[in-house]
């Protein structure tokens, strides 16, 4: 087992735990949740690169769905679509020349891509009705708020981890 495998396993375990805890939180509007499990993706991306972040995220989505009993259900399809979309945009933004985006920017991009992909997936596969898009503005607003807060949290976590490892 290589060093990277251990990192992936450890972070995936953390992400799965957060994902499970978060799925127990009630939500005011279907589709809105804080996206705390994505903070792990963001942290791993910044510290260990995109390929590790993609591994951790995909393992989290599949393992959490097996534990929740939603594997291959619409919930799983939505979760996977969101994860793939946010990983794709994170890959592009992370390798952008000059690395202009900080944790907050990356987090906002991931959150917006995540929710947009989920709405499109829901429309194409499960609820083929135009009225579905009435929800989109509310979901995008929630994504901007949770993305910004998530990015700030990751910045703080990075600072804390640095101050611990440097002493």
């Amino acid at each position: 087992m290589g060093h990277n495998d251990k990192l992936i396993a450890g972070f995936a375990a953390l992400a799965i735990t957060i994902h499970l805890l978060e799925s127990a939180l009630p939500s005011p509007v279907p589709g809105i949740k804080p996206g705390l499990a994505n903070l792990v993706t963001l942290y791993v991306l910044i510290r260990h690169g995109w390929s590790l972040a993609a591994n951790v995220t995909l393992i989290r989505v599949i393992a959490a769905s097996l534990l929740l009993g939603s594997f291959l259900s619409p919930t799983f399809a939505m979760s996977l679509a969101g994860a793939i979309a946010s990983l794709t945009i994170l890959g592009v933004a992370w390798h952008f020349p000059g690395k202009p985006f900080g944790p907050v920017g990356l987090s906002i991009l991931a959150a917006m891509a995540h929710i947009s992909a989920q709405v499109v997936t829901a429309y194409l596969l499960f609820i083929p009705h135009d009225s579905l898009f009435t929800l989109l503005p509310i979901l995008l607003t929630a994504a901007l708020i949770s993305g910004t807060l998530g990015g700030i949290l990751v910045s703080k976590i990075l600072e804390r981890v640095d101050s611990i490892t440097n002493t």
Partner: protein
Amino acid sequence: MSRSSFTALFTTADKLLFLVSLSLIVFSYVYFWQTSPASYAIVKSGQQDSRLINLNESKIHQVEGRLGISKLEVKDGQIRFISSACKNKICIQSGWHQHGGAVTACLPNRVSVQLGRQTSQTDYDAIIF
């Protein structure tokens, strides 16, 4: 948290991205929440084929439902139930409808009215587990 350390969390690109996202969201509210008057309505019933009603042509339409006849009045781009063979007359009390996307129905009589653009023809309404 001091103000300077808070703004230090955002790079220039982050701030730009935040503003672009914000304007995108404002645009999405304007775009997806606009109510435009409908020009026609799709009337469906269990008893007969669904039909398209032109809302610009004032007329009273008769629809055959499970219990009997429902009458729909069209006037000035609006539509309402004026009589129906149901018990509670909720369909009549719901009044005039004119916005695209609005839906009204007489459930006991199995007659539904959908205003506005025709949604893509699919085999099902929704899938849930």
